[in-house]
């Protein structure tokens, strides 16, 4: 919200400089985001009067003027056709910066200095509206008001000797959405109480009740509704002071009546509305709920379809305003308005919010009402607005106000225990210190006992309902930085972060393998999310078609990242991401039927090693990935898993290999299908593995086993088998041979082709044998190897290859 320094001074006198005020308000919770000296850019500009104008001796279009600027009379060369003696003009003095240069295509500012123009000295510049950045007119100089005081600074003449603050007001403090509201907080700083101007009204003898009536049907959403009627006003521009005030607060002046309603809102926080009396049929107002589907045009010219339950201000026939949100075009103040109905009301905040939200309207009024206005401010604002309209637009104020307020809203009585306050804050404040803090906020102590006091909370403080709310106020006034900082040693035993350890382990292992950790956006197009075949979670209000669903896999994100890297010439890629994936499940889950899993995805493509002079780097293959996955599972503390080669439910990879751990599928690895790579613009072979973290959790406690005491022996054997016998089957066959001595089987060679019959291949293994009891001797080793070989020959039709 924008606030004017000068305007604040109307309610409370304070000597704080803008910088101090900003700092101190910020420390009270009113975050001053910035402030601006409005007149800054008119430094060095003054009001002058042209005394005489003579033709320039050497230039057709120029004139030489003598201009009185109060202290002295300057000679100024001027090119404007409209310059004339007697005019009051804006004079830029040497050293001043002209905000816009009308001879520059971009209007860049420039600084004035004493110059000679065609041989004649010029000691300043008479400026146009455009040059002063006050409007579009470039054709001539700006002529000021006849009454402007010679020598006065231009910024003062324009009402810009002011500072505008931009303050972020939190949504719990609607009472701060006005100058008076902020003045109250300044009161905390200065120890003075601010006050609103006293209203003095001159009413006519004609009673308002004779000419107007109000009926509130929806009493729940409209607890208070008040009007006054002013006849025979003259609509026109507002006086200078009012325009200046509104501009400083960031509003554009319109006409005197509308400006007054805005001024009063910015003064005391109560939004107002003015109707054209002539447009209110039946000279009455009825407040009631709209029929859903009714269409209504607001004063900004937009057509709306009213939602169920929208509260409307109606005349005898039709809707004339969306209550507390925005007035209607059909009854707005126009240049021809003569009689005005002024509304000041208090609306139920949630009703206003529902309506404004349903219609997508944001307005200053709705902003305040939905946060909560002050029901006690209604009559003051109404009278104040009436007073200012009489002042600025004239007219006759009918006697009395109509004020429908059936159920009085009282000040809240909130208890506060001194002990509780200290227990929350860690302070040792006394009861009287607390009372003093709250008194600065206008919160008075009522009844009380030793520890517990009751406080009367003014109605404008909608945020204070409970003891804790008062405690916050005590802390605020006492000063957060006056509360001592204390550290406490304690250990949480509820969250031994096992999941964290697993994720960290995976991350560290992969980084050790040379992977870069990537993080990709979890929201993607529905087309991409559907690639996995899972049913994606679709957003109701997406940013666009490309960002409309939640990812079902981490693979597409990494493919996109890979493609981007490839386009920058980085083609050797090892990437991984740990993140959540989502899908709609048929079963109910923790949240709705959304299944959310944390996964790790490995992506690799390109060469296995950087180029080196001594040895070649090689293209990565599926076996590089398969090995790294096995190492990763090892690192997770898993000692048994199974690969499943035949499932085909994976849609992103060809011939995927599934990893099964303890009977559940943990994920898969494989080569990304060419068409999938292409879809993401990646033009290389790529391999991915995607595993669910929860499946990688090992329940096994780490436990020591005694180290073997006797040496290992190694024997190599090679078999010729049918091509369709896999290495895994052969390994299993050897391991299941019942040999207690066989510790490991390592495949070290595979060969197909020349010297072998068609349909056959050769596989060579190293058998590692070891006994727990003794050092094996040759004949024991030979017997054992023979036993294993015989089994493989018998079971798999293999033939031992003579070496």
């Amino acid at each position, binding site marked *: 919200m924008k606030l004017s320094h000068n305007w604040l001074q109307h309610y409370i006198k304070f000597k704080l400089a803008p910088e101090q005020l900003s700092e101190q308000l910020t420390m009270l919770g009113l975050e001053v985001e910035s402030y601006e000296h409005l007149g800054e850019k008119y430094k060095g500009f003054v009001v002058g009067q042209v005394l005489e104008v003579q033709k320039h001796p050497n230039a057709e279009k120029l004139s030489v003027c003598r201009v009185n600027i109060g202290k002295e009379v300057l000679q100024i060369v001027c090119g404007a056709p409209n310059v004339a003696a007697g005019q009051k003009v804006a004079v830029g003095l040497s050293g001043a910066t002209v905000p816009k240069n009308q001879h520059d295509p971009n209007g860049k500012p420039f600084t004035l200095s004493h110059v000679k123009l065609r041989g004649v000295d010029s000691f300043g510049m008479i400026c146009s509206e455009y040059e002063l950045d006050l409007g579009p007119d470039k054709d001539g100089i700006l002529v000021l008001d006849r009454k402007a005081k010679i020598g006065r600074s231009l910024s003062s003449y324009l009402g810009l000797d002011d500072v505008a603050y931009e303050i972020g007001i*939190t949504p*719990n403090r609607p009472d701060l959405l006005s100058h008076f509201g902020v003045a109250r907080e300044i009161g905390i700083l200065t120890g003075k109480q601010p006050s609103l101007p006293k209203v003095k009204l001159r009413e006519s003898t004609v009673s308002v009740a004779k000419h107007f009536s109000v009926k509130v049907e929806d009493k729940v959403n409209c607890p208070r509704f008040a009007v006054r009627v002013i006849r025979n006003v003259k609509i026109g521009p507002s006086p200078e002071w009012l325009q200046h005030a509104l501009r400083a607060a960031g509003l554009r002046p319109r006409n005197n009546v509308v400006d007054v309603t805005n001024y009063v809102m910015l003064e005391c926080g109560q939004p107002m509305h003015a109707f054209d009396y002539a447009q209110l049929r039946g000279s009455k107002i009825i407040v009631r709920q709209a029929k859903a589907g009714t269409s209504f045009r607001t004063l900004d010219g937009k057509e709306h379809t009213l939602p169920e339950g929208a509260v409307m201000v109606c005349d005898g026939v039709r809707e004339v305003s969306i209550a507390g949100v925005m007035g209607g075009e059909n009854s707005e103040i126009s240049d021809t308005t003569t009689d005005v109905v002024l509304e000041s009301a208090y609306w139920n905040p949630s009703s206003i919010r529902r309506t404004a939200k349903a219609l997508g309207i944001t307005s200053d009024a709705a902003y305040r009402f939905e946060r909560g206005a002050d029901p006690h401010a209604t009559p003051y604002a109404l009278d104040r607005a009436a007073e200012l309209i009489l002042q600025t637009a004239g007219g006759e104020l009918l006697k009395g106000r109509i004020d429908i307020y059936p159920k009085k809203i009282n000040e809240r009585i909130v208890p506060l225990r001194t002990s509780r306050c200290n227990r929350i804050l860690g302070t040792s404040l006394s009861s009287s210190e607390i009372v003093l803090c709250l008194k600065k906020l206008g919160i008075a102590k009522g009844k009380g006992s030793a520890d517990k006091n009751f406080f009367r909370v003014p109605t404008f403080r909608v945020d204070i309902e409970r003891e804790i709310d008062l405690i916050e106020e005590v802390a605020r006034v006492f000063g957060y930085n006056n509360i001592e900082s204390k550290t406490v040693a304690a250990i949480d*035993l509820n969250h031994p972060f096992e999941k964290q350890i697993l994720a960290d382990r995976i991350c560290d292992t992969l980084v050790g393998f040379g992977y870069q950790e990537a993080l990709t*956006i979890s929201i993607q197009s529905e087309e991409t999310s559907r690639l996995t075949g899972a049913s994606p979670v679709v957003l109701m209000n997406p940013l666009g078609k490309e960002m409309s669903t939640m990812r079902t896999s981490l693979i597409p994100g990494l493919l996109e990242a890979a493609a981007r890297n490839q386009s920058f010439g980085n083609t050797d890629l090892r990437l991984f991401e740990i993140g959540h994936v989502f899908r709609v499940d048929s079963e109910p889950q923790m949240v709705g039927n959304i299944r959310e899993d944390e996964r790790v995805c490995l992506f690799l493509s390109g060469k296995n090693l950087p180029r080196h002079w001594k040895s070649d780097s090689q293209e990565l293959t599926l076996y590089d990935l398969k090995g790294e996955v096995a190492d990763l599972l090892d690192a997770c503390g898993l000692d048994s898993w199974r690969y499943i080669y035949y499932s085909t439910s994976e849609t992103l990879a060809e011939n995927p290999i599934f990893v099964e751990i303890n009977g559940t599928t943990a994920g898969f690895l494989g080569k990304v299908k060419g068409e999938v790579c292409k879809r993401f613009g990646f033009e290389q072979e790529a391999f991915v593995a995607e595993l669910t973290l929860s499946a990688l959790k090992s329940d096994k406690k780490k436990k020591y086993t005694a180290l073997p005491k006797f040496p290992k022996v190694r024997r190599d054997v090679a078999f010729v088998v049918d091509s369709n016998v896999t290495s895994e089957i052969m390994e299993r066959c050897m391991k299941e041979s019942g040999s207690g001595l066989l510790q490991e089987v390592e495949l070290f060679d595979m060969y197909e082709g020349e010297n072998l019959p068609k349909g056959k291949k050769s596989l060579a293994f190293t058998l590692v044998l070891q006994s727990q009891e003794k050092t094996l001797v040759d004949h024991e080793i030979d017997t054992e190897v023979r036993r294993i070989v015989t089994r493989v020959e018998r079971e798999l039709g293999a033939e031992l290859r003579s070496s």
Partner: protein
Amino acid sequence: MQTKIAQLRQQVEAEIGSVTTEDQLEAFRIKFLARKGLVASLFDDLKNVPAPEKPMAGKYLNELRQRTQMLFDEKAASLKSTPHVSAQLDPTLPGRRKFLGTKHPLMQTLDEIKSIFVGMGFGIADGPEIEDDWHNFSALNFPPDHPARDMQDTFFVDRNILLRTHTSPVQIRVMENNTPPIRTIMPGRVYRNEAVSARSLCNFYQVEGLAVDVGITFSELKGTLLSFARRFYGKDIKYRFRPSFFPFTEPSAEMDITCFICRGKGCRMCKQSGWLEILGCGMVDPNVFTSVGYDPEKYTGYAFGMGIERTAALLYGVDDIRLFYENDVRFLRQF
């Protein structure tokens, strides 16, 4: 004498040229420069030189000694910087490198934050990224139809289910599933319906903290966060806590530290204020305790939260947070 000196000088010049190893250099030193070396022995001879010639001979001899020492020093320096090249081994050839893996800068930042809080006795918890209204809003004291809900632009899946807008729903889950004392941090990914720009993204990381026990005070909140900030940003930082508003804490505060880029003078990063906002915090609102069935009279607690992207961007001087999600390896390798 002068002839002797000249001869020795020639010898020195010739022999230094053929020195190629440390060993040869050492032999050279012993031969010429040692206490009983050839140069020293000429000094011994000096006493036999006739008096008139002595000054001149002494001068030449000193020059010889200096020259020899200089040649020795030069050679020693050059031997140190010249590799031993032989037919078998050129040690200047490049070694075999690997592709270096790196952890994502956001995760590195998060790790650092986590380790500080873990060091102060906090546990780590997590929760789902897709949440229901209860955990994300209602239980956190955001009443329905309240403007506070506008503070966070929300992606909805349906009327009740949404992408969590902060990590605070994990507070609710932690409290629902545990009894105090609780001291835990909750890192994770959150979502806001905001157009992607250099300063905002539709998803980002936060870390939340929660402490609930008998006797926890605002004073302890300040102490804990101050310890964190001093450890993370440096022990000499200046700081301030100023009042703010979050529906789920009261009193609520924001913590600022002096801008470490301009040291409080005012710069673009701190919007000329000299202060950087680093986190939001406050005492757990009694309504939140009531939502999870804790007795607000018995327990008090504090909560805090901070954004990781902003923290990492400040720390590393990254001026466009989109870089964190583009995964350009040239970027990732810088951390």
